[in-house]
């Protein structure tokens, strides 16, 4: 008995180790695929220029001392600081607009059994299908009429055209998961339907709200064409446009600074992502599964 009792935890630990090993082995290819390019970008960002063009030595290590010059270049010789602030502001405003429109819309579509609701929902989704290659021309008229040409505010107006459809569908799923009983109870307690939405439904669905914000952030950073068409002034550009247009000079690529510029926005967002990931997962789960 005593022997067995002692053996059991040991073998459990062995099993654990084996299980972990299997998982790590299984994860390796994915990590290589996902992380290798990132690692390479990081190394490139820290390298001196002549070190990049050597194929006779291991490219993964530094043959000239690593340097922060590429990062300094970003902040001292370009408007990278402004670009960061612009991107952050754009994303915040876009998120706000998206929430203000998509929350009520998603709620109405999910809960109110409106005639044509289904078709309206599909119509909203369909707007996601229209390619930006043709939309940017008429939209530039709109942007100019609003007096927003060459300011990042133009992008605050335009980006919700793709965040609203996405987040409406996402939130629609969340609201479906909220039990009707909660809402009814709130209404009997004297809340109007709108009050019930604000005070009961929304707080219960906050993972959905966070999910929408995160998506608004990421989607806003994936655009290139709209920002190219609407913003040409350096200090008004968002990060992707600024980096891609001002760190390539004809046939000269400022590789190190390009990579530095990408990592400085990508990594913090990934960290935030991860912090919220648990909420996020319940968020998506709520949205579609239940």
């Amino acid at each position, binding site marked *: 008995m005593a022997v067995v009792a002692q053996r059991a935890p040991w073998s459990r630990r062995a099993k654990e180790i084996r299980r972990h090993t299997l998982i790590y082995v299984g994860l390796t290819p994915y990590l290589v695929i996902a992380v290798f390019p990132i690692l390479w970008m990081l190394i490139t960002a820290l390298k001196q220029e002549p070190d990049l063009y050597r194929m006779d030595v291991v490219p993964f290590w530094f043959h000239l001392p690593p340097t922060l010059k590429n990062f300094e270049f970003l902040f001292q010789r370009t408007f990278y600081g402004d670009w960061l602030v612009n991107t952050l502001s754009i994303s915040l405003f876009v998120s706000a607009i998206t929430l203000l429109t998509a929350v009520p819309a998603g709620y109405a579509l999910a809960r109110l059994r409106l005639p044509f609701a289904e078709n309206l929902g599909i119509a909203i989704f369909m707007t996601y299908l229209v390619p930006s290659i043709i939309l940017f021309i008429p939209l530039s008229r709109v942007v100019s009429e609003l007096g927003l040409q060459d300011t990042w505010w133009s992008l605050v107006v335009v980006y919700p055209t793709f965040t609203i459809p996405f987040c409406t569908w996402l939130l629609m799923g969340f609201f479906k998961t909220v039990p009707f009983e909660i809402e009814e109870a709130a209404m009997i307690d004297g809340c109007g339907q709108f009050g019930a939405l604000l005070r009961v439904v929304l707080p219960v669905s906050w993972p959905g709200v966070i999910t929408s914000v995160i998506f608004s952030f990421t989607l806003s950073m994936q655009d290139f064409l709209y920002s190219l068409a609407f913003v040409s002034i350096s200090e008004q550009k968002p990060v992707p446009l600024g980096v891609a247009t001002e760190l390539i000079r004809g046939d000269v690529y400022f*590789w190190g600074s390009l990579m530095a510029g990408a990592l400085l926005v990508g990594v913090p967002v990934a960290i935030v992502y991860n912090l919220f990931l648990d909420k996020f997962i319940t968020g998506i789960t709520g949205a579609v599964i239940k």
Partner: protein
Amino acid sequence: MGHLASGGGRSPGASLSVPVGGRAKALPWWRTPSVRRYLFGYTLLAPAVLYVGVLVGAPFLFSLYLALSDASVGAPVARFVGLENFTSALETGVFWTAVRNTLVFTVGAAVMKGFLGTTLAFLLVQPFKGRRVVRGLVVIPFTIPIAISVLGWKWMFDSQFSVLNWALSGLGLIGEYGTPDWPVWLGQPMLALASVMFVNVWRSFPFSAIVLLAGMTSVSPEIIDAAKVDGATFMQRFRKIIVPMIAPILFVGAAFDTVFTLSDLSIVYLLTNGGPDGATEILPTLAYNTGIRGGALGRGAAISLFLFPLLLPAMVLLLRTLRRRQY
């Protein structure tokens, strides 16, 4: 769960109308509960519908008009030419190459994303030490702005300084620089298409994995345990329980991702601009080079709208099924 499905479900407004239903007759029509509910509902919908209606709907009609006219960048007031832009697109070889590549790109990338995403989700659903760190690392490709990460890939695919080739060559998997066994990622037709697809996959598979992970964690362990007790094998549990449960997530995720992939210009534009000899030409690059850089707006619009009639019914069908599903 089923009772919550839309359409078939109750709504609070509707249920409230039951106890007060008796008074409904006395009220004028615009104050009846269902009318009030409609008013409330459409008011809630209005901002979103107006926003996308004004900023996408109206421009979309304008682009339809472009596609049916002979407009050029400098002369937007143009003649109506009917479907001529569409038929003239159909006549050119490059257009069909672009259609083929677009389909191969979208479907191929979707399959790869599906495979990598699903398998990764299966790994990440297990509890293990360092799961948070791993999850954080794998989402980075998704959080870096695509326009910049593509430039990173351009550098990694460089015909001369490719770090990929350096690594593969060091491992003895490919030949030395200057030999025919040194792959030119963006130069060989099949390889070029595979490379641009891979960048799309690299960027999106973490997203697929997370979405699926979400789906899997939501399958309650009790159901799986019950199935185990009933003697279901792993494959049976997978097919009969997990797949049906995560299918709706897959659908919405796939629908949005497909549209995003279809209309995404930046990867191909920045890596190959459709070359060499159309090997990676897709509809967005062809439309951009014809309509914007070449100045033939009408034909560019027609090319970029070409998939619309094909996509529309598919999407409507998909979304309707999704919404009606009893899940």
